[in-house]
C-alpha cells in the first residue's frame, strides 16, 4: 500500500511530502525522502521487549513490571530528572510534563544541548521570524550562519530556500543570493555566492561589526574582525541592505561556541536593525523533528520552553541551573527518566557517569548509548511510523504525523499514561 504526503519524523524540516510503501508492518520503499529519511523509515533495529538490568547482565521483562518499577523509582527520588521528549509527539510530551508536576521533578528537553541558548537570546530581545513559506515565496537573500543544512537538514534548501521557486521568485537559484558564514568550508559553503570564514569564537565580534555598519558607522570597523576583512564585511552588509526580503538561518555554530546565547542575541539585534531598512527575518535551524514541539508544549503548560524545576511545586526556570547537563554533572538528581533521546551519546562524560550511577530508565524504540547506562528500557512505537501525534516544524507550523501501520509496540502516550496513573496512585490525592 502506498501512502502519500507522509510526514518525516527526522529533522526540524518536517517534510510532509514523502510517499511510503508499506507491506504489513514493513516499509518497503520511500520516495521524496533524503538519506536521513530513508534510513529512518527503512531502518528496522528495534529493541524487541522491555529489558531490565540484573547484576552485570540484562533480562527481558514485561511492560507492566517495567512500568511499575519505573513508577516506584521516580516516586522514591528526591530530585528526579525527566529528560528528552523531542523525539516523540506532543501528546506524550504533555503527559510527561504533568508527570513531572506530580513528582516534583525537573523536566528538560533536548534544547538544552541544541537551541537552548537561542531561547535565552529570544527571551532577551524577541524573535523576528516567519513561516518557511514566506522565505520560499519572497527571500532574495538567504544566509546560513553556523549551520550546514546539506548534512543536517538535507532538504531545507530544496524545499524552502536556494532551490525552491516561490511566488515572487520564479527562478530561485538565480534570483537568490546565498551567503554562508562558518568556521569551516562545509558542503553548504561550497555552493554559496559568498562564503564568510570566521575564526572560531569570533561570531559575536563579526555580528557587532555588522550592526555598526548597518547603522552607518563604517569608520569604526578595523581592517579585520575575527579573520573577516573589512571589505567583505562591507560587501555582506551591502548585500543585506539591498535585499527586499532577507532570511538568516543559524545553527549550533552560534549556540555552542563561546558567548552562547549572546551570539544569537547579537544576530537577532542585527536582524532587528535591518528591519529599519528592509525586511529581514531570522530563524534557528531546529534539529529534532519535534524539538520545537517540546518547547511549545512545555511553554503552554509550565510557562517555560525547557529546563523546568517543579521541586518546589511551582515551575522554576533557570538554564545553567535547572538544565540537564548542569544537574547531572553536579550529581544533583537521584533518578532519571529518559524519553525519546540519547543523553548517553550527546552529553559530556561526567553526565553519562552520573546516569550510570543513579537508577535511569529509558523509554525509546532503539538500543542506543543510553541503553548501557540504564536499569530499565521500555521499547515503544516510532512516532510517524507506527504511532501518530502532533509535531511542530522548526518555524512553529504544527503538522500531524501519521501512523503508517499498526505495529506491536505501545506508543509513548500509552506507556506514559500508564506510568502517570501508577504514580498518581502511589502519590495519593
Amino acid at each position, binding site marked *: 500500500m502506498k501512502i502519500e504526503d507522509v510526514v518525516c519524523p527526522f529533522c526540524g524540516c518536517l517534510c510532509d511530502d514523502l510517499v511510503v510503501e508499506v507491506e504489513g508492518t514493513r516499509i518497503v520503499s520511500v520516495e521524496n525522502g533524503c538519506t536521513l529519511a530513508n534510513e529512518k523509515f527503512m531502518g528496522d533495529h528495534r529493541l524487541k521487549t522491555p529489558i531490565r538490568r540484573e547484576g552485570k547482565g540484562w533480562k527481558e521483562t514485561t511492560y507492566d513490571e517495567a512500568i511499575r518499577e519505573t513508577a516506584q523509582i521516580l516516586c522514591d527520588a*528526591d530530585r528526579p530528572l525527566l529528560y528528552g521528549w523531542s523525539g516523540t509527539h506532543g501528546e506524550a510530551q504533555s503527559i510527561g510534563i504533568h508527570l513531572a508536576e506530580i513528582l516534583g521533578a525537573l523536566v528538560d528537553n533536548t534544547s538544552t544541548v541544541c537551541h537552548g541558548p537561542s531561547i535565552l537570546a529570544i527571551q532577551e530581545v524577541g524573535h523576528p521570524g516567519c513561516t518557511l513559506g514566506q522565505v520560499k515565496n519572497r527571500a532574495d537573500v538567504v544566509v546560513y550562519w553556523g549551520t550546514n543544512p546539506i548534512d543536517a537538514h538535507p532538504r531545507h534548501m530544496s524545499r524552502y530556500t536556494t532551490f525552491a521557486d516561490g511566488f515572487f521568485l520564479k527562478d530561485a537559484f538565480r534570483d537568490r543570493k546565498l551567503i554562508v558564514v562558518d568556521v569551516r568550508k562545509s558542503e553548504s559553503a561550497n555552493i554559496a555566492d559568498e562564503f564568510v570564514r570566521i575564526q572560531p569564537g569570533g561570531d559575536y*565580534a563579526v555580528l*557587532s561589526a555588522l*550592526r*555598526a555598519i548597518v*547603522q552607518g558607522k563604517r569608520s569604526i570597523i*578595523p581592517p579585520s574582525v575575527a579573520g573577516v576583512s573589512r571589505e567583505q564585511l562591507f560587501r555582506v552588509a551591502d548585500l543585506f541592505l539591498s535585499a527586499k526580503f532577507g532570511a538568516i538561518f543559524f545553527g549550533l555554530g552560534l549556540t555552542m561556541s563561546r558567548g552562547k546565547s549572546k551570539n544569537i542575541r547579537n544576530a537577532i539585534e542585527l536582524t532587528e536593525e535591518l528591519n529599519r531598512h528592509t525586511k529581514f527575518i531570522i530563524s534557528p535551524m531546529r534539529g529534532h523533528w519535534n524539538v520545537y514541539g517540546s518547547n511549545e508544549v512545555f511553554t503552554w503548560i509550565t510557562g517555560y520552553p525547557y529546563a523546568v524545576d517543579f521541586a518546589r511545586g511551582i515551575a522554576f526556570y533557570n538554564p545553567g541551573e535547572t538544565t540537564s547537563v548542569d544537574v547531572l554533572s553536579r550529581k544533583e538528581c537521584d533518578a532519571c527518566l529518559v524519553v525519546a533521546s540519547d543523553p548517553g551519546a550527546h552529553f559530556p562524560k561526567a553526565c553519562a557517569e552520573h546516569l550510570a550511577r543513579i537508577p535511569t530508565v529509558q523509554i525509546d524504540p532503539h538500543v542506543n548509548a543510553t541503553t548501557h547506562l540504564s536499569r530499565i528500557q521500555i521499547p515503544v512505537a516510532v512516532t510517524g511510523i507506527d504511532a501518530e501525534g502532533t509535531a511542530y516544524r522548526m518555524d512553529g507550523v504544527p503538522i500531524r504525523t501519521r501512523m503508517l501501520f499498526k505495529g506491536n509496540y505501545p506508543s509513548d502516550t500509552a506507556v506514559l499514561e500508564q506510568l502517570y496513573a501508577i504514580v498518581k496512585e502511589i502519590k495519593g490525592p
Partner: protein
Amino acid sequence: MRVILRTKPRKKPFIPIEAETIIPQNFLRKNDIRVYEGNKERRLEEIFYITAEGPAVSPDQVEIVLSGETGNIKRVGEYMNAGRIVVEGDIGMHCGNFMSAGEIIIKGNADAWLGREMRGGTIRCEGNAGHYCAAGYRGEKRGMRGGLVDVMGSAGDFTAEYLSGGEVRIHGDCGDLPGVEMRGGTLTIGGHCHRPCGNMTGGTCMVFGRVYDLLPTFRGAGNEEREYRGQRCQMMLYKGDTANRGKGSLLVKKNLNRTGTD
C-alpha cells in the same frame, strides 16, 4: 542575636538545599523555618545544628553564621532587608537575590548568580564568584540596581550582565563578557577579562588588568586617570558599544603589553 547554623551530614549531599528562609528577620521569633531538599520540605533543624545566642528586637541586630557543607545551599539571603549573614565556607547559587539592605560576608567561594537583581546592601565574597555574578534574571531588562558586590577573588562569565545601578568590584579576573548589556552603575575589574561590555548602553566599567578580544565596536575617546587600591592609573577610555547606542564608558589600564584586539 547570633544564630549559628552548622550543617548536619546528609544522605544525599549533592541535592541542593533551597533556603530563601535564611534571612535575619525570620530568626527574630522562634518561627517554624522550613527549607527544601530537592522536592522534600524539611524543618531547619533537620538540616542544621542550630544555636542562638543573645537577644534581638529588630532584624538588624541579627547575625546568622552558616558553617559546614554550605556550598550547595541556594538562595541564602534572598530578599534580605536588614542584619548580617556570615558564611564561613562556600555558598550555593543565588545568594543575596533581591537583597535590599544588610550585609552578607562569604569567606569561601560563591556559586553562580551571586546578588542577582540586588537593590541595596553589601555582599562581600572573599573567595571567587561563579557565573552571572551581580546579574539579572532571564528576560528581565534590568539586573542589579543598587548596593555593592565586592569579590576579592575572580568571577565567572557574564559578570554584572544588565547592571543598571550600584557597584560591582571584582578584584581578580573575570571570564567572558563582563558588563554585557550593562546600562548603568559601575563595574570594576582588578584583573584580566575577555570581551568586556558587549552591547553596553550606559554605565562605567574599569579594567585594571588586561583586556583580551576587545570588541571592534568600541571607539577610542582619549585618556583618563583613575585610582584603584590607592594607585593612580592611566586609563584608555573607550565609548561603546557602538553596535548599540554607544553611550557607555569602558576604561582600560594603559602600559600593559597586551591590550586591544590581540
